[in-house]
């Protein structure tokens, strides 16, 4: 079965081609969709919102993109159960549009940080992480200015899927690059079909580029859709 993955492109999105390459490598058929063509989203099996600087992060990262017809469409599809993965700016769009709880704010260092980090896979019972082991330590790069996760009141810890950790999997303060609450790198929606994460799995999908741990995230999703 051919799995089609829709990649929305907002003005300023810049990781769409990288996600496209990774999704293809993982074995699905990717489709980049310009934000004005949001109706095309109805035809896909899952959505990956890529990173970048939609609307140059004006106001707040993801704030303007969250208020477009494209995002409204994605939200409706997610409510119908379609899997949605938001990476970096995509994660910011997910929290800004209310598809995921909490907020992402400026890094503790107040600087942009581009760096390879270790992540602990807290849950492998999601469509996006089923090919990892529970507690496995994986490596991916982060690249963001506003990645510090702040929970909303009554935050449910069950939603945590990925945490920043050291190379042995210890969740320590030193391993937290941006000051996120509980070292949160990625969370899932209560319905378990929307995952947002700050690290870039598409940038870790080839050994020549420094690692391929990220590729398994796309493979997990594809395998889930094929079942």
């Amino acid at each position, binding site marked *: 079965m051919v799995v089609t993955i829709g990649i929305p492109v907002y*003005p*300023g999105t*810049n*990781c769409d*081609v*990288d996600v496209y*390459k*990774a999704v293809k490598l993982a074995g699905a058929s990717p489709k980049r969709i*310009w934000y*004005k063509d949001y109706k095309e989203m109805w035809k896909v099996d899952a959505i990956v919102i890529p990173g*970048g*600087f939609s*609307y*140059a*992060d*004006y106001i707040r990262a993801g704030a303007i993109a969250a208020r477009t017809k494209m995002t409204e469409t994605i939200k409706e599809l997610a409510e119908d159960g379609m899997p949605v993965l938001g990476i970096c700016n995509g994660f910011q769009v997910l929290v800004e549009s209310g598809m995921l709880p909490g907020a992402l704010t400026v890094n503790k260092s107040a*600087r*942009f*940080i*581009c*760096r390879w980090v270790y992540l602990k896979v807290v849950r492998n019972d999601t469509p996006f992480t089923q090919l990892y082991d529970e507690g496995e330590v994986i490596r991916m*790069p982060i*690249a963001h*200015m506003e990645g510090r996760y702040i929970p909303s009141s009554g935050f449910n810890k069950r939603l945590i899927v990925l945490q920043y950790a050291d190379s042995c999997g210890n969740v320590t303060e030193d391993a937290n690059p941006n000051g996120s609450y509980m070292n949160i790198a990625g969370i899932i929606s209560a319905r378990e079909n929307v995952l947002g994460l700050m690290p*870039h799995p*598409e*940038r870790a*999908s*080839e050994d*020549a*580029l*420094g690692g391929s741990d990220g590729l398994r995230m796309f493979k997990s999703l594809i395998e889930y859709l094929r079942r």
Partner: protein
Amino acid sequence: MREYIVRNLTDDEKSKIIKKLGRNPNDVEWAMIDVMWSEHVSYKSSRSFIRRFLRSSGRHVVVGPGQDAGIIRIADDIYIAFKIESHNHPSAVDPYGGSSTGIGGIVRDILSMGAQPIALLDSLHFGDLDKRRTWFHILGVVKGISDYGNRIGVPTVGGETKFSSCYNENPLVNVACIGIVNRIVPSVLNKPDSALVLYGNRTGRDGIHGVSFASETLDEESIEEDRSAVQIGDPLTEKLLIDASLEIFSRGLACALKDLGGGGLTCAVSEMVGKGGIGAVIELDRVPLREENMSPYEILISESQERMLLATSYDNLEEVISILNKYDIQWAVIGRSIPERKIIVKYKGKKIVDLPVEILVNVPIQRHPTKPRTKDFSKDLKFEPPSLEESLVKVLRNPNVSSKEWIYEQYDYEVQTRTVIKPGADATVLKITSEVGVAATLDSCADYASIDPYEGAKGAVAEAYRNITAVGGEPLAIVDNINAGDPNNPISYWEFRETVRGLGNAARAFSVPVVGGNVSLYNESPSGKIWPTLVVCMLGKVNIRHIMTPSLKKTNSILVLVGDTYNELGGSEYLKILGLHGYGSVPRVRYKKEKTNSKNVLRCIRKGMVLSVHDVSDGGIITAVAEMAIMGKKGIEVAIRSNLRGDIFAFSESHARYILEVPEEHVEDVLKITGGIAIGKTSSSSSFYFEVNDFCVDLPIRRLEEAYAIRW
């Protein structure tokens, strides 16, 4: 209406223009001539030396100097465009705006060739770290590059950052961009009756007099006043401009393309049609404006950012417009090309400019007197060496040497997923296909040039050559940026000439052609002038399967030193920490040795006989070995006997040297191929033991790491 004040023309030049034209130009025409005759646009003071000394032909060269960027061929179907430019003056007065618009400009230059921008590198020179003004520069420049570069989705993958008091008032911001070309789009138009489409941002009053301002020295007043001459950047429009342009190229709709940079619309139009032997009619009322009541000359010379001038056939106009509309980009058909070699500008139904193109694009060369600097560096260098341990820690902590992670981690160096060798190594490697990659480096040796401009310029080329070699690359071509002082100052002008001569001779000797370049003069302020600073951007070709990084990989492998060490401490980091900069003789470039050693090191890499490679440069052998140990988190034991005094051997910065990490079984072959010597081995301990004659360092790697990884 404001009156235009001519800023760049001498009385002699003015009378030449009047004679050539046979009449007095009007106010608007003077404005256009003035920007075209500025140093920044015309290269009038630098062209003669550049023509005389630089060679630009070679087997791989597809497009040489004179276009918006150089293009080389690195494999059968792979063409790479690259270019470097300075944004020194704007960055001195408005570091954030200056550096970000510098990024925008160089990216558009690459785009102008029909290329997709894939990487940025920057060479930054700042003043002393204990000066408040320096921090104003650093924080603004780095944030500007980060905010703009990251937002447009072009990774910043490498470069260099150096510090010296000579840059206190005149920091240098040189940015290079690399692009992949599918189909070359010329920047020159030779077809009359093409539509001229201006697209991107609206035109405002920012950046008026930008080129004039870059063609003068800075003083207290200008630092405050000229902020309005600095343009304002808008990365979102730039990103959309890139996306739309790439779509226009892929459908073959562009006849010619130019970005609007220095000199604004005037320069873009005159150069596009002028170099193609035709002319143009511009309808100035059609230019979309950001502000009301702009006078015609302001519209013509504004340097508002994120604007492109596209020439397309009227048949394709509709398709071009539909692409621009898709990306919500402002556009206007502002004129058409004509067969007559004239630039005609119409405004409110009247012809306000009617100039022969030649007056705008053929600017006479200007020569200035030169005066060699007296060589005061022959002074004998005699000093009592401090302990090697203490010196090593100081050198590693010196900001010229220490890790620049605190800077480059503010840049997205991963976007576009091509970065195989990341920043922090000798050169960056970008993956183009599964096999072919491009190695890129930016280097300068201004500290040597401060003592000997000619050797310093050669040194920058040699260092770049080694950096490409060290990652496994075959050096292919150069674009350069020369930063110097006021050409009216005979010593500064001599320094400039020596720099061009050094670059030209070294590039010829290494068979690495110079395919493009930029010159930034007038880097002087009342407190002094900068060191003549040549920044070399070199590209090489690599096989992705045979690439090398400097970090030590294994324990019990052998460290091999390739190349000879001389008593060449002049300009070294060692003398700087001792407060003796200016003494001693600088490292001399020995072409034959440099070429042979490069060839041999590459042979070892390709045969899979080495584990890591690092070139020896700032801080000498001991620093190179320390960096390899720190990056690889491995201990080392080194013992060397030399005829030189131990500290001189350890810190001399002689060229043509490399450190290789070699597995035991290949040592014999590597020594045979390279003529190198085994100097020690890697160990499982966590200590750094380095002994040369009666000098010795024995420190935990962690101590060195603390010094090297200092964050600001």
